[in-house]
């Protein structure tokens, strides 16, 4: 089984960084992926250069940058979903609170008013 030497790994790492992969964890994933793919092809008798070229081709026309863009979009989509859930639950809590206060106003609001009326009447009679 072929194993890439230090120089070759450094070359691939530089290539990945050069093509706009800023995210560290993604860089590690892609570096290992590209290296493994090259090693397997070298096992089948290809040269390092030919295997490298072939592997890069598999990333498609958008290249490496597209992988990062897609990762970014999936993660933001997830955060946006979480925001939606949060604002939904805040909305539910607020509407329940409003509903309960209206109910409370109807049930006890009149009693409060009539009590004060009674008190007013009492005061009036005394004076």
């Amino acid at each position, binding site marked *: 089984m072929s*194993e*890439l030497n*230090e120089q070759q*790994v*450094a070359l691939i*790492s530089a290539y990945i960084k050069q093509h706009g992969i800023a995210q560290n*964890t*993604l860089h*590690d*994933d*892609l*570096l*290992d*992926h590209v*290296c*493994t*793919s090259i090693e397997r092809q070298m096992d089948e008798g290809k040269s390092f250069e030919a295997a490298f070229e072939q592997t890069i081709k*598999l*990333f*498609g*026309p*958008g290249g490496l940058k*597209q*992988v990062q*863009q*897609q*990762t970014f*979009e*999936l*993660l933001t989509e*997830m955060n946006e979903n979480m925001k939606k859930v949060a604002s939904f639950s805040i909305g539910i809590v607020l509407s329940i609170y409003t509903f309960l206060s209206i109910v409370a106003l109807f049930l006890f609001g009149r009693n409060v008013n009539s009590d004060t009326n009674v008190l007013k009447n009492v005061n009036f009679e005394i004076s």
Partner: protein
Amino acid sequence: MHKKIRYNVWMHKKLMYVCLMYSNELIKGTLKTIVLSLLAKKGRMYGYEITQHVKEETDGKIQLTEGALYPLLHRLEAEGLLETEKENIGKRVRKYYRLTESGNNQATSLAAEFQEFSKTMNRLLNNFSLKPSYYV
């Protein structure tokens, strides 16, 4: 806004989920099921291993691209369905992905859901499939 929509359409046209036989929509909807059930069976795997395994098990009918796989793996990790462990391989780091407990539950329920769905689709398509012309 327009620019973003156009970009998304462009991305889809550029074969995000390269696959020789099935439409992008089919693969997109089942990618999570594929990856989670593979990990449920195999324990821990690294990215390259996952792509190769899927390719072999499906006789090359489904070929995951890096552009589809790694974004998904990162998202599943962020959702707490996967956890990673790192190992040094020569001069580089290899990241192994494995299911967490909730990932395991999710894998089971997704697989069951898909099998049920596929049964229903089969029944539906068998009932409504076009009869050969000599029946008409």
